[in-house]
C-alpha cells in the first residue's frame, strides 16, 4: 500500500471527527458549542492539509493517526466526546508535528 500523505491522513481524521461531533451533539444544551468547536478545529486541520497536502507521512505518524482514530472510536459517553472534540485534533496535530 502506498504511504499516506498529509491530505489523506487528515481526510481520515475529519471523517472520524464528524462521528465524534455527532456523539457530542447528544448533549442538547451544548449542541451549538459542539458545532462551533468542531468547526474551529476542522478549519485548523484543513489549513494543515492545504499547506502541504502531498507530504508523505512516516509509518509511525500514519500509525499514530490510526491509533488516535481508534481511541475516539471507543468513546460512548457524549460528555467525554465533547472533551475529545478538543483533545483529538490536538493529538493528531502533535503527531503530524504541527502546533495545535
Amino acid at each position, binding site marked *: 500500500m502506498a504511504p499516506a500523505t498529509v491530505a489523506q491522513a487528515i481526510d481520515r481524521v475529519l471523517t472520524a471527527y464528524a462521528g465524534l461531533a455527532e456523539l457530542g451533539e447528544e448533549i442538547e444544551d451544548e449542541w451549538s458549542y459542539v458545532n462551533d468547536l468542531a468547526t474551529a478545529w476542522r478549519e485548523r486541520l484543513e489549513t494543515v492539509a492545504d499547506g502541504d497536502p502531498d507530504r508523505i507521512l512516516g509509518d509511525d505518524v500514519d500509525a499514530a493517526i490510526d491509533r488516535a482514530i481508534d481511541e475516539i472510536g471507543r468513546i460512548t459517553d457524549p460528555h467525554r466526546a465533547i472533551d*475529545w472534540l478538543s483533545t483529538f485534533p490536538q493529538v493528531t496535530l502533535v503527531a503530524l508535528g504541527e502546533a495545535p
Partner: protein
Amino acid sequence: MRFQDAARDGRAIVYAGIQADPLVRRVATQLADASASQCVMARAVMNGETTDPAAWRATFPTLFGSSVAAGPERARSEDLLAASLAVADRGEQVRSQFRGAIVEEATAILLARRAGDAAIRRERRILFDGVRAEIHPYDVTVEREGGAEAYDCKWGARGINDDVLHQLDDARSHAADEDERLHVALVVFDAQRSCDVRLDRLNAPRAGTTIIPLESLDRLAEGAP
C-alpha cells in the same frame, strides 16, 4: 481587600483529601516542566479509554518514536505517561476529581517559582468592605503586598462559564474600588483555540481576566497575568 480560608464544609474536606493525594502532586510536578506536546499527551491519557502504555507511545511518535533520542525529554515523557495512566486507572469518577486538582496543583507550583511558596494559598475567599462575599473560593491565590493574584482553574474549555468569569472580574473591580491591584486569571488545561470558542459564547466581562491555556502554562512562572 482581605483573604480568608474557605469554610471547611463536607465538600471541602473530601476535596482536601483528593488534593493531598501524592499522585496529584506527582502529575502536577511533571506538568510544570512539560512541553505543550507533553501536556496534550497527558490530557489525552488522563481522559482516554485505553490504559495500555504501548498504545499511547504509538499515538505520540514525536515524544516516543524511534527518532526521539534517550535523554531528559524522553524520560520526562515516560514519567508523565506513567503518572497520567495512574490517574486514568483510578476510574471515571475519581479521575474527574483528580484532573481538576492536578491543574490547580500545577498552577500553584508554577506560581511559587515566581512568587515564592509563602505567597501561594489555596481555596481562599476574597473579602471586600461592603460587598457580600462570594460563596466559592478561588482555587489558587498569590497573596503579597503590592500585587495580589487570584486564579481559577479548569480542566477543559467547556468548564469556562459566565459565573466564573463574573466572579473573577467582580473581584478585580472590587479591588480597584479599594485602590488595590488584583490580577485575575483563568487557567485552562485545554488549547487556546477551544477556549476562544467557549469564550465567544459567553457574555460575562473578561477584558480584565487573563486566560492561560495549556500551551502557555509556563507564563505562570514568568510574570503576573
